[in-house]
């Protein structure tokens, strides 16, 4: 929409020629300037500029849908109204069916907690035919840290979905639907996902997994956080628009980092309100935060936090527009992740965003073990 050509809108011929003469060809060029600047640049009076901008804006505006038709579209066109079941009952009911289509879902947690396991299982279940709860399509798995192991995937499949996997040749075919990419650098990744945009619909891709986003950025030796934030900005927009355009779920994993001492989480007026409220307690182990910054945190629609607390692993729905903040204990078995209890405990307060890693060092890294 932004790249609509001015020449193709119903502007008066004389005016569109003037625009073209000054190299203002697309709607984006015209609307990136204020009306005043356009007036000066194009040497036309304000009334003409205003009517030209009105026409350009009308042509470049996105179409209007009512929320009802949005819902109807979802119900009609999408499998399970646009959700990919995770086969974890508690989580699926909390997320109204599963990982939603069209948005970016983030998995964040300390190393070794089970993010890649979760992703691999999700990739597998997406490749199943619809009768078995899958999306009957291909999966693109962008594996930055080389954690993907097809053997593990098949093992998970055999243990969790025996009825599917014991059919002849099913295992091979399912595993074959998962395409693994291993980009070596950020620019490599950028090129791949740009190419993906065209081929996603053609090749029936139904799920995109990026494991992990943080590793891609930390691999670059960029000077300073600002540059990194800016680069990330483009990727955020692109991934979101890709998810929406193709109506597929995108799952991204993120790592944790320790919080700087300088980072406070207060507004300027909060100093004033201090006398009435509780002190923000800083315990020893709540010094981990999700990497990739606050911009990224704003941009993802659903955030699932995996953490370890007193020897127990917990998965929390930290940010979701449609679920209360629930936490479920889980463990990793040979069949992948499974919930220990389907009844989540509701966590109030900002604690849902805290990431604990205590008592975690003695957890076995399942990956390294089985091979």
């Amino acid at each position, binding site marked *: 929409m932004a790249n609509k050509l001015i020449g193709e809108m119903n502007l008066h011929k004389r005016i569109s020629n003037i625009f073209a003469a000054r190299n203002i060809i697309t709607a984006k060029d015209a609307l990136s300037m*204020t009306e*005043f*600047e356009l007036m*000066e*640049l194009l040497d036309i009076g*304000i009334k003409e500029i205003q009517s030209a901008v009105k026409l350009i804006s009308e042509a470049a505006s996105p179409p209007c849908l009512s929320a009802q038709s949005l819902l109807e579209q979802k119900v009609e066109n999408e499998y399970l109204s646009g959700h990919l079941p995770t086969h974890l009952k508690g989580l699926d009911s909390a997320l109204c069916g599963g990982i939603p289509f069209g948005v970016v879902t983030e998995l964040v947690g300390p190393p070794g907690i089970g993010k890649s396991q979760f992703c691999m299982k999700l990739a597998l279940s997406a490749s199943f035919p619809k009768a078995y709860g899958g999306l009957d399509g291909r999966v693109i798995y962008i594996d930055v840290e080389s954690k993907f192991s097809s053997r593990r995937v098949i093992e998970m499949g055999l243990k969790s979905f025996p009825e599917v996997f014991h059919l002849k040749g099913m295992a091979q075919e399912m595993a074959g639907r998962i395409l693994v990419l291993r980009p070596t650098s950020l620019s490599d990744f950028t090129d791949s996902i740009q190419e993906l945009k065209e081929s996603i619909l053609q090749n029936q891709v139904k799920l995109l997994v990026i494991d992990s986003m943080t590793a891609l950025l930390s691999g670059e030796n960029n000077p300073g956080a600002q540059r990194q934030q800016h680069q990330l900005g483009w990727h955020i927009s692109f991934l979101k628009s890709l998810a929406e355009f193709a109506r597929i779920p995108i799952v991204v994993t993120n790592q944790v980092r320790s919080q700087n001492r300088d980072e406070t989480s207060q507004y*300027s007026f909060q*100093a*004033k309100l201090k006398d009435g409220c509780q002190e923000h307690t800083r315990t020893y182990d709540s010094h981990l935060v999700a990497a990739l910054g606050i911009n990224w945190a704003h941009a993802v629609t659903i955030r699932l936090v995996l953490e370890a607390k007193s020897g127990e692993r917990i998965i929390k729905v930290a940010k979701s527009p449609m679920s209360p903040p629930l936490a479920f204990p889980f463990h990793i078995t040979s069949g992948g992740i499974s919930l220990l209890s389907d009844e989540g405990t509701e966590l109030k307060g900002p604690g849902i965003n805290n990431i604990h890693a205590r008592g975690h060092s003695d957890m076995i890294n399942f990956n390294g073990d089985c091979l």
Partner: protein
Amino acid sequence: MAPLKHLEMENPIIDACFRDFCSSHGILTVEDFLLHDIYELAALAERQENADRLKEGITVMLSLIEVKCRPWLNGMELLEDMQRSKHTLSSGDKETDSLLQGGLREGQLTELVGPSSSGKTQFCMQAAASVAEKQDGSVFYIDTGNSFSARRIAQFICGSSDAAALRKRVLSRISCHTVYDIYTMFDTLQGLEVALRSQVQKNVNEYRLRLLIVDSISSLITPILGGSGSQGRALMVALGYLLKKLAHEHNIAILVTNHTVGAGESGKTKPALGETWKSIPHVRLMLSRDNRNSNCTISILKHTSMPSGQTVKTTMTRNDNQQYL
């Protein structure tokens, strides 16, 4: 002033001959006339046949120009004018009045600078209420951000007896206009000027306009300032001069608000609108609010008759000043 031929109607001396003579020397408009060397022109006129008529024409031109230009005033006259017609208006806040030796002065353009939510709009509304109530004048409030609240102004009125009638009287002296771009602003001010001039002629003295508030001028100027051309800055300067002219000719105090922008990595804030704007207001005040309590500090950045740097603390609370029904 227009091209020379338009002057013919009222001044028949400036006829076609005169105009031809002028155009032969490259003079087509009054401005060209002014830029040309008058003595040289007179000398050249001598050489022509109708020298006397031409010289008469030149004299008439000069007198016309003199009529248009502003009268000379000497210091005594200025002082008298100041004492007679340019009073100080209380801003409604005692500490500010003491800082400014009386308050807002008529004939001057006062600028109030401050970061967001520091209380600029509150200050403006308080000043409007004070002038309308205590100084028997009317107030013209130009609002660019939908922040004019009649209810809040009513809270600033603190008369003791007959509250409702007083409120009605005071509030009807404040008129509010919403303006969302610079050209509409010029139109509004132009219309105001015409209205004031006609009022002067009719000598209507009821509720003379005493205070003009623009809240905030920076939101009108920021979209046009900067960029590739300098027309934005020219418009800003033109606006400043128009305001000052209005203030001086009609004895109005003008209060405008401006916001602050960050100045690089040092984290210090400075007023928006740049260097050119700095010299336009007569008085510049900086308002800052302490977040820990409701104290505001007003400091003088620039004043025509006081040293800068003086500050005063004042409490501008956001609570109701009094209950009313």
